[in-house]
């Protein structure tokens, strides 16, 4: 695949020929490559796909059909793979940063009628959503909204400040447990717990952040990962306080000025709460990105030493980003506890952190629209893939790899703010 660039000429040919010879000089060469790939994968998957042994009864099950499937499948897929790589290469110059949906969004936003029209339409759709569809759809939509908020919170740490954080779920757990415990022991309601959960998130973030934020890159990643695991293990083992692995059940659903709802209504209600929280989050993050702090963080991400020379307080800025990100995890945790009414440490494993991080990266780091797209894909996909039952996690993993290979910058990439200078006027801000 080293000679991909030679396929440039292929673009002008008809698409079928381009598909067949992508990345190769001739059809014969691509055929040869595909056969080789196919043979290689037959070799690679041979023991695991074909042989199944039972060491107790000493019997061997040979599944030769699988070998044929792999051979044919790889043969076809290798054409698709080369074609896709060649296309990625070809389109590189035209638009590395923009794709069709991004362009469409830009076009819409440049026309204010279309913009507000669409905005009103979508807002209306979001509002009527729980009434238009079933409770199940609403319920998974709440999960999705929670992940969007988590993703946006983590985006602040990873996307904007550039700190690789693998223990984000710890703060989510802190939020969820602070509501659950306060509710169990003191009967504190959802609305009171919401700011308290956020506060706890911030306190924990500062406690962790102070000593470790001076670590760089992957060292920070592993420390945060370790911290996430420590929090989960403490929740699991400190049974007297956290109820241990059996978790806390019967957590109150959010009330509305003392009114309590049934299951149906409270799910709808939780949906609106999450929707409100999301809009609030987007608003705050949007303001923050362009604030003094936001710009300081972006500068730090690009070059620490240069920005320190410009007078940015590195520790303070990083700590603020870390704390703000965790604040949202705390908020989302409270809503999560109220929504499921039951929590146990099993919901706060490292995988959860990995998924939230994937939401941010697959969506497009630093971009709010991207995070939303990422959450929609990663959270809703496994739900709608229920039809594939046991294959769904396989498809899920493969999708993560493919999205990264073909769109490494994420689905919707962040756009830098551009400040234009017009002669005679002061700098304007678009």
């Amino acid at each position, binding site marked *: 695949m080293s000679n991909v660039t030679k396929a440039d000429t292929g673009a002008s040919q008809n698409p079928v020929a381009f598909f067949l010879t992508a990345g190769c000089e001739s059809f014969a060469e691509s055929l040869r490559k595909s056969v080789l790939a196919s043979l290689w994968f037959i070799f690679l998957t041979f023991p695991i796909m074909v042989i199944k042994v039972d060491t107790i009864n000493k019997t061997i099950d040979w599944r030769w059909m699988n070998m044929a499937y792999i051979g044919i499948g790889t043969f076809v897929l290798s054409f698709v793979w080369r074609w896709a790589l060649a296309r990625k290469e070809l389109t590189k110059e035209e638009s590395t940063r923009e794709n069709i949906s991004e362009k469409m969004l830009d076009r819409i936003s440049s026309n204010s009628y279309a913009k507000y029209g669409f905005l009103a339409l979508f807002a209306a759709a979001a509002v009527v*959503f729980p009434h238009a569809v079933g409770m199940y*759809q*609403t319920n998974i939509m709440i999960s999705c909204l929670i992940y969007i908020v988590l993703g946006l919170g983590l985006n602040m740490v990873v996307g904007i400040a550039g700190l690789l954080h693998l223990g984000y779920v710890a703060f989510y757990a802190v939020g969820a447990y602070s509501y659950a415990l306060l509710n169990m022991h003191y009967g504190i309601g959802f609305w009171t717990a919401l700011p308290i959960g956020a506060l706890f998130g911030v306190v924990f973030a500062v406690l962790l952040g102070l000593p470790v934020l001076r670590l760089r890159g992957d060292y920070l990643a592993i420390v945060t990962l370790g911290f996430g695991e420590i929090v989960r293990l403490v929740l699991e083992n400190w049974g007297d306080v956290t109820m241990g692995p059996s978790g806390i059940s019967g957590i109150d659903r959010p009330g509305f000025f003392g009114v309590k709802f049934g299951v149906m209504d409270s799910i709808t209600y939780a949906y609106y709460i999450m929707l409100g929280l999301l809009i609030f989050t987007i608003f705050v993050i949007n303001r923050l990105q362009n604030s003094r702090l936001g710009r300081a963080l972006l500068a730090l991400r690009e070059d620490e030493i240069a920005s320190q020379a410009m007078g940015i307080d590195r520790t303070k800025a990083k700590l603020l980003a870390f704390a703000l990100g965790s604040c949202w995890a705390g908020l989302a945790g409270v809503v*999560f506890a109220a*929504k499921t009414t039951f929590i146990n440490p*099993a919901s706060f494993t490292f995988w959860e952190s990995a998924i939230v991080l994937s939401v941010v990266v697959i969506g497009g780091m630093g971009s709010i629209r991207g995070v939303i797209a990422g959450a929609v894909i990663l959270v809703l996909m496994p739900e709608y893939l229920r039809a594939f039952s046991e294959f769904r996690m396989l498809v899920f993993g493969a999708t993560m790899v493919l999205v990264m290979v073909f769109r490494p910058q994420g689905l919707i990439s962040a756009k830098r703010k551009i400040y234009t200078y017009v002669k005679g006027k002061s700098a304007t801000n678009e």
Partner: protein
Amino acid sequence: MRGKLSFVLMAFALMGLLLAGCGGEDKKEAEAPAKKLILGVAGAHSGDLASYGLPTVNAAKLVAADINAKGGVLGMQVEVVAQDDQCKPEMATNAATKLMSDDVKIVLGHICSGATKAALEIYRDGKIVCMSPSATNPPLTQSGDYPNFFRTIASDDAQAMLEVEFAKKLGLKKLAVIHDKGDYGKGFAVFCKQFLEADSGMEVVLFEGVTPGAVDYSAVVQKIKNSGADGVIYGGYHPEASKIVTTMRKKGVEIPFLSDDGVKDDTFIKVAGEYAEGVYATGPRDISANPLYAVAEEAHKKEFGSDPGAFFFQAYAASQALLNAVEKAGGTDYDKVVEALRTQYVETPLGKIKFDERGDAEGVGFSVYQVKNGQYVELK
């Protein structure tokens, strides 16, 4: 600045619209002919605990096929709808709301106690009857919070009580109680510890949790050895149990190993091999003498070509009990179905059962088994 905010709203709402599209289709499906009785089956059908959940789906399918062949329940054909929860609470609530929005009235499941707890509240408010073949957490029935919950397996405290009594019978004095830090294992271990401490003749010399999936357990085994225990009680599932037993025997620790029904699984014997010999485990009473047991086992072999898995017979009995209750109640009316479950006996592989006020099956209990020559043998 405004522009950016509006993009975001737009993108968000766009996704809303897309979903609304999907949702619409689902609704149409739900309006299918009403001549069907849906039996929801919820549990772990994927993930690391799938081997505990899938046999339940098989059981429900077999019972449904059997009843459908005989004309169905009240003329309605029974349809099995499976929902995966991976034993995770948040997935369980999704599965529960999915079942509820599909207008399911009777649910067989869930498999794990934690997931069951999370889902039960939704079922309770939706007036859905839920029966688990495997959730053994005592408060599920004993708290009285869930009048809609039933189970065909005895609870953990009954099992722990039996385990401790048996340990006493073996003449053990100093016990090491080990658990897997899980909901089920730790709960069981805590009950054992309580019963042991209440007994003046026995003491707990070690109470520890191991991390499931850890590379090895040699340190814990050394600790057991060092504690001077003359017996080990383990609460948890078979993968860790077989690792601990193997390590113990390899290190020459030959004291009795007692465990629970998470270990009373043939996979344990398969994996631990020769080291499994002599291990004790409590499990549901041996029912293989029951003629219906053979019928169910035969049906499974014929349909799926393999031996039934964990909790299969409990699930089989639960499906029968649920469908029988609907038949006796003359419909899926919540109160009548619950009433029928509490009053009407039903013939199942577990014997003739009905349920008490709290939802536990009467006549279902535990016995102690021991591995002898690569097989679990019931000790009378």
